[in-house]
């Protein structure tokens, strides 16, 4: 076996490397490299990469869980199954995940799950905020802020959360204690958090997209969209680019380092209502008031599929395994494989009677969809939605307190800088393949910017023009005129006159210009 492998390596290029999801990028063609050392090094590296990919693929066998599924038999259709029917056919652990919380007074609710999917945060429009472990039902805190809550979002873990309230954004801790009031974020409609960059992004009625670093507290960037009030925002989890949906039907893509949008796409004929991006960063789903639900390929910014919703969809969510949840009116429909091929019927549907769905969110690493609606929140089971196998070092579903603390430290050490957000996240460490001329021109421009040519423009500083007389007059109250003030004004006037004369060159005998040596002259000499 070993000998066979060696033979393959020797052949090098001849063996076509198998393309799996674990291979990263295109292998470097090394057969034409003249430099022997470089060639052997690249050859070795490539074979190591390929070996790693193959081993990773083999490791799939020992993964403990498999993706869930829901299949119809005979005349059945999957979209006809109600949650009550599903509950009868699944284990008790799963059936507990189907629940309804009746919170009629303070809705509609926006919801958010932590990155490991354990904790749920709900924020009622009329001021009700609560956080709990939704699987055990253990309440973290519950509070009423007595003002409008437009959106709520967890920060990097379940110890901190942000709420967009009537005027400002507030940060609370896991006991409901207000920690910060972010006065820079005014009238915010949507919040989002970039966990690897520790950036809290907000957009609101003024149409400003703001990034705040939650680890240092700095406002990193403030971008004016110039497209009016914004209600729709979603992050691309693949490259941390923020997608905003606007009232004129466009979707704009933003990064903190650019003051203008990276991309501007016209997606709908009416205002954009909702947005969602899949975790691979390949597809974006948008819905507009024109009743369209469109799937976009955000690698080439082209539309892939177009669906129609009878009522404009108010909320969208894409699960880890690529299911698309659409909340429209009191309905939720879930589409499977909706990106690559046009589906004729949804995978599942759900109806929330006499209540409009406000917010839908798939739970990470679980087959559950959470709904925030006018009369509370609901949770429904959607088999095949979540990633079955979590990675403890990325998001640990069964996290202990100690592990949470450790992870917080490590994630802070690995924090990415805001300027590293680009459309292509693999650009770090890559070779610049632009031609030599282009690179040298860019460098020259950079250098010129840093070292401006020509004489340096000196600021006209009025240094030394202040005098004790002037200061005296300035300090004196304006409306009080006494003898001292009159004297001072007269003296100042006289000095000014002498200065003007001196400038003209008409200095008289008695009015010698004052020199530094005159300091030492006696009083007598001065008067003469």
């Amino acid at each position: 076996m070993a000998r066979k492998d060696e033979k393959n390596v020797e052949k090098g290029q001849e063996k076509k490397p198998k393309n799996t999801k674990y291979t990263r990028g295109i292998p470097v063609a090394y057969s034409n490299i003249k430099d022997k050392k470089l060639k052997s090094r690249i050859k070795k590296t490539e074979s190591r990469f390929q070996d790693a990919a193959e081993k990773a693929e083999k490791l799939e066998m020992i993964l403990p869980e498999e993706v869930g599924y829901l299949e119809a038999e005979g005349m059945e259709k999957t979209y006809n199954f109600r949650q009550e029917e599903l509950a009868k056919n699944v284990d008790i652990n799963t059936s507990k995940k189907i629940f309804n919380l009746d919170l009629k007074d303070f809705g509609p609710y926006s919801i958010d799950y932590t990155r490991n999917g354990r904790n749920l945060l709900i924020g009622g429009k009329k001021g009700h905020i609560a956080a709990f472990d939704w699987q055990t039902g253990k309440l973290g805190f519950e509070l009423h802020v007595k003002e409008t809550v437009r959106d709520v979002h967890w920060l990097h873990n379940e110890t901190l959360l942000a709420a967009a309230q009537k005027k400002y954004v507030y940060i609370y801790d896991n006991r409901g204690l207000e920690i910060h009031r972010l006065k820079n974020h005014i009238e915010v409609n949507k919040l989002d958090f970039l966990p690897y960059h520790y950036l809290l992004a907000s957009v609101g009625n003024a149409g400003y997209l703001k990034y705040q670093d939650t680890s240092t507290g700095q406002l990193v960037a403030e971008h004016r969209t110039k497209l009016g009030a914004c209600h729709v925002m979603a992050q691309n989890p693949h490259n941390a680019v923020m997608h905003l949906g606007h009232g004129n039907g466009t979707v704009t893509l933003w990064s903190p380092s650019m003051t203008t949008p990276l991309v501007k796409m016209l997606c709908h004929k009416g205002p954009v209502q909702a947005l969602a991006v899949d975790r691979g960063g390949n597809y974006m789903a948008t819905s507009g008031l024109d009743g369209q639900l469109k799937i976009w390929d955000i690698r080439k910014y082209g539309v892939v599929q177009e669906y129609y919703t009878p009522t404009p969809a108010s909320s969208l969510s894409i699960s880890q395994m690529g299911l698309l949840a659409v909340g429209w009116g009191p309905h939720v429909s879930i589409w499977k494989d909706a990106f690559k091929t046009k589906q004729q019927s949804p995978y599942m549907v759900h109806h929330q009677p006499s209540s409009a769905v406000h917010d839908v969110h798939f739970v990470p690493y679980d087959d559950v969809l959470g709904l925030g609606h006018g009369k509370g929140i609901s949770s429904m089971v959607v088999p095949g939605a979540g990633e079955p196998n979590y990675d403890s070092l990325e998001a640990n579903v069964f996290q202990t307190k100690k592990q949470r603390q450790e992870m917080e430290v490590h994630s802070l050490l690995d924090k990415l800088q805001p300027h590293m957000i680009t459309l292509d996240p693999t650009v770090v460490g890559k070779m610049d393949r632009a031609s030599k001329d282009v690179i040298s021109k860019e460098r020259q421009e950079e250098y010129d910017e840093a070292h401006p040519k020509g004489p340096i423009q000196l600021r006209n500083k009025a240094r030394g023009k202040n005098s004790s007389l002037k200061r005296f007059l300035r300090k004196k109250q304006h409306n009080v005129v006494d003898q001292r003030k009159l004297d001072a004004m007269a003296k100042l006037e006289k000095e000014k006159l002498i200065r003007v004369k001196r400038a003209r060159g008409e200095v008289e005998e008695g009015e010698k210009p004052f020199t530094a040596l005159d300091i030492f002259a006696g009083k007598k000499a001065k008067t003469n």
Partner: protein
Amino acid sequence: MKIKALSRSSSDYVRERAQDIHKVQKNLDPTVHPFEKAREYVRALNSVKTERMFAKPFLGSLSGHIDGVYSMVKHPHRLNSMISGSGDGEIRIWDISERESSWTVKAHKGIVHGLCPSPKDSKFLSCSADRTVKIWDQNEGTTPIHTYMGKYAFTGLSHHYTDPLFATSGNAVEIWDQNRSEPIQEFNWGADTTHTVKFNYTETNIFASCGTDRTIALYDLRTSQPISKVVMSMRTNAIAWNPMEAFIFTAANEDHNCYTFDMRRMESAVNVLKDHVSAVLDVDYSPTGEEIITGSYDRTLRLYNARQGHSKDVYHTRRMQRIFCVQFTMDSKYVLSGSDDGNIRLWRAHAAERMGIKSVRERAHLEYSAKLKERYSHMPEIRRIDKHRNLPQSIKKADRLKKQILGNRKKKEDNRIKHSAPGSIERQPERKKAIVGVAK
């Protein structure tokens, strides 16, 4: 209806007892790990920063010699010992772990130019400008076992690895038998004076010497004849054989560089070690043959990877003067330098490394960060931090000046080539520039 939904039982994922280690789940799917490249880069950056933060190479100085330390050698049998000789003829044996001298003798009347162990027994030899070579045994007290009288001042000394023979350098290269009071052989090939002689450890009958006529000569004892010699543009101060590759040796040159040679092909150096700003006075290989330490007249030590051209680290202190001898310890974790100011200084061979037993996790982490650093070493920020060293102003200035001079020479050469007929002027490779010729 066929249905299966994710339902994880906590008993499969949570440890049973508090004494157990936590269960760790792995999923290598790249979509579960976004920004992997960017995060790796940040980790590499952090590790390179912490490495510079923890870089504390100086461990301590061994003071005791009254005059400058001009020769140093590893103890033949004890790992934690070094033998040093100074300008006033004193020899000391140092216990490095205790950082004090355990044995002192006023050995010579002149400067101790050479020291070498006798590999088969616990003795060692010293040679001096007072025209004597003496054999010492630490256990036999402070009187030499034997004294050999020479005709002229000795400048260097090296012992055969297996036989009781040793070579001395001076006005000629002489081979001595330990049991005879007169040299048994004499080699003389052009040079007025030779200042170093070094036996090969593996090919034990071959030795190299360097002389004032800017040559490095190789001799074979079996044929009693010189093998070959290379003439360089400036003189060579010291030679060190690679302990792992028998045919490779490195010569410390007066022209600020060290040249690594393959003794079978001396027309061109295998590697040129640059960066010093003054003459290199001594050179030593690590026992692994992978690293080289050099000491220079510019009062700095430089550490090189044996296969790379520029130093990976430079050590200096305010009080350290011209360095005349350097040694790696046998565990390749420390280096010692002996200088004009009479101190021997003990340094870490890897400035940021911490001694002591490392846990498996710590070791894994260090390996991981070393790999990341290598992978992202071309990134400007990482390269800048990794390369940054605070150097004395004098060395910085000298370095700047030297770079300018070399740059001007390069420019001149470029212009000359540009304005000549194509092919009429050939560019001389750096590895051949300093070599004037080879004689056989």
